């Protein structure tokens, strides 16, 4: 077991953090918004946290505690998301998706040009404070929060906004406000994940949190199933695990197989692997079978 962990531990750590990114993408989707912006907020948050740690270490003092960095990440991510939401959420869905991609591109350019603070292309080292257990704990807490959210008033209004914004609005739900809350919370989550990712990589360059990661996190969310919080986590685990698993057999062509798998899963399971509607259908079927047995 410990040997297994020595080899694959780091993979799992990345998978869990990808799970957090996927959850932040999922939160956007839950409010009916296709947004890749959390990665941009993650980048901002990671840079602020990394810079704080760097200055502290350069001064020869002890780094801030981990909790402080996580808190900073969440505040910065949430703040950036809240500010930008006023511009972004005005847009229609197609433009919104494009604009959030543009935001990720802009974040990189800003990081490149504020090289006094970010180290520009050279980057900035990030001292690692987290352990696997920290990441698991964070993922666990976030999952529980999503579980609670799902059955809350806010969760139901998110469902309504996603399915039919017009109807939701006629039911007295303020669609824009619900979306803004979800967007901001996605930013908080993105900031958190960004700090974790930076600490995992231990080095932050403008491309650490960039378009590829944005696409992968949204792919994980949809692959796993973007209708319940379990989905994105499962998606992220699979997305990381499958290439690792294929590596010994396929070597460098694993990416081809990986991409093809993504297409196949999307084509055949359009609602993703974990689909609450499917579970409901199964349990209904089982119940009806039981009632039949009782009747006969």
């Amino acid at each position, binding site marked *: 077991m410990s040997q297994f962990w020595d080899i694959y531990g780091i993979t799992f750590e990345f998978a869990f953090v990808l799970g957090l990114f996927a959850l932040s993408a999922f939160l956007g*989707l839950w409010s009916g918004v*296709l947004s890749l912006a959390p990665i941009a907020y993650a980048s901002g948050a990671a840079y602020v946290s990394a810079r704080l740690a760097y200055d502290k270490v350069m001064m020869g003092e002890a780094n801030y505690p981990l909790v402080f960095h996580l808190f900073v990440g969440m505040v910065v991510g949430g703040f950036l998301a809240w500010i930008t939401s006023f*511009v*972004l959420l*005005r*847009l*229609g*869905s*197609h*433009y919104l*998706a*494009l*604009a959030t*991609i*543009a935001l990720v*591109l*802009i974040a990189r*350019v800003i990081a*490149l*040009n504020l*090289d006094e603070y970010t180290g*520009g292309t050279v980057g900035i080292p990030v001292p690692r404070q987290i352990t696997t257990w920290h990441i698991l704990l964070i993922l666990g807490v976030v999952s529980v929060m999503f579980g609670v959210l799902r059955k809350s008033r806010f969760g139901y209004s998110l469902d309504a906004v996603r399915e039919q914004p017009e109807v939701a609005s006629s039911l007295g739900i303020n669609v824009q406000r619900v979306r803004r809350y979800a967007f901001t919370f996605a930013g908080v989550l993105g900031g958190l994940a960004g700090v974790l990712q930076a600490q995992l990589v231990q080095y932050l360059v403008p491309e650490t949190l960039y*378009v590829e990661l944005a*696409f*992968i996190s*949204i*792919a994980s969310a*949809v*692959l796993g199933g*973007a209708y319940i919080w379990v989905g994105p986590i499962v998606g992220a685990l699979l997305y990381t695990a499958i290439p690792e698993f294929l590596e010994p057999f396929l070597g*460098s*062509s694993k*990416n*081809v197989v*990986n*991409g*093809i*798998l*993504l*297409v196949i899963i*999307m*084509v055949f399971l*359009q609602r993703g692997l974990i689909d609450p509607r499917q579970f409901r259908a199964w349990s209904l079927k089982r119940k009806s079978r039981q009632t039949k047995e009782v009747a006969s």
Partner: protein
Amino acid sequence: MNLFIQQVLNGLAVGSAYGMFAMSFGLIFATMGILNVAHGTIATFGAIAALTVVENWGFSFFPALLIAILTGAAIGIVTDRLAFQPLRARANTLGYLITSIGVWIVLIALGETALDHQIKTFPPDLLSWPRLVTTNIYLAPGQIWLMIIGPISVVALYLVLTRTPIGTMIRAVGFSDVWSRISGVSSTVVILSTVGISAGLAGIVGYLSSIAFDNVSVPLGEGLLLKGFAAVVVGGFGDVRGAFLGGIIIGVTEVLGAQYVSGDFRDVITFGLLILFLLFRPEGIFGEIKFGAAR
């Protein structure tokens, strides 16, 4: 002054590439709602295919251009049949995005294999005319062809979209898929021709810009894609003229910014522009209506 003219011309050449790419990317997005992440890699494949026939069978410029178009269109159509067509029954932008990410991963891996992870270049004797050399101004043939074919392709595409039956059908599907089907528009014809035109155009862009920038590599297409996003946000994807103009604006500001402000600040102006457009003109220069309503 000469330097200024030189840089404006350089910017126009780069901008033509961005503009053509943005046009082809935007056409698919506007008509079918597919945010095709793999589009840049299709452009790369246009260049790779052209390079292959030039190196192995000594094709000259125009036959190789034709190969680039055909390769782009073929990859586009195959991609569409395999990865997008199965999702059409319940068309949603999200599903398309995910399958296009899958296709993108596959194409990048194949492209890297085809190029052996190297950056290759076309033989210099492939294209020796027209070359513009005065005392202070120098334009390579690749750049000149970009500046010639760019505007031609906008005008051609605009005329096709507005003046021909197939163009009207494409715009009708862009406006409403269901309504156009009710009025007897064959969606298969529309989809195949849109993808063919758009991916073929991507092939052209990949080929011409790989000549102009002396660079056949996978990052070339990815760069086009990112700048294409920017151009589409500036120009709007709903109108081919807007998308092309967006590309020109991005290209010229990029080159002039690098010359007169600072090389490091290169992208700042481009993306500053992007932020301005997002704030004040989120639907692009020409807006969307022109493309939506069949007038």
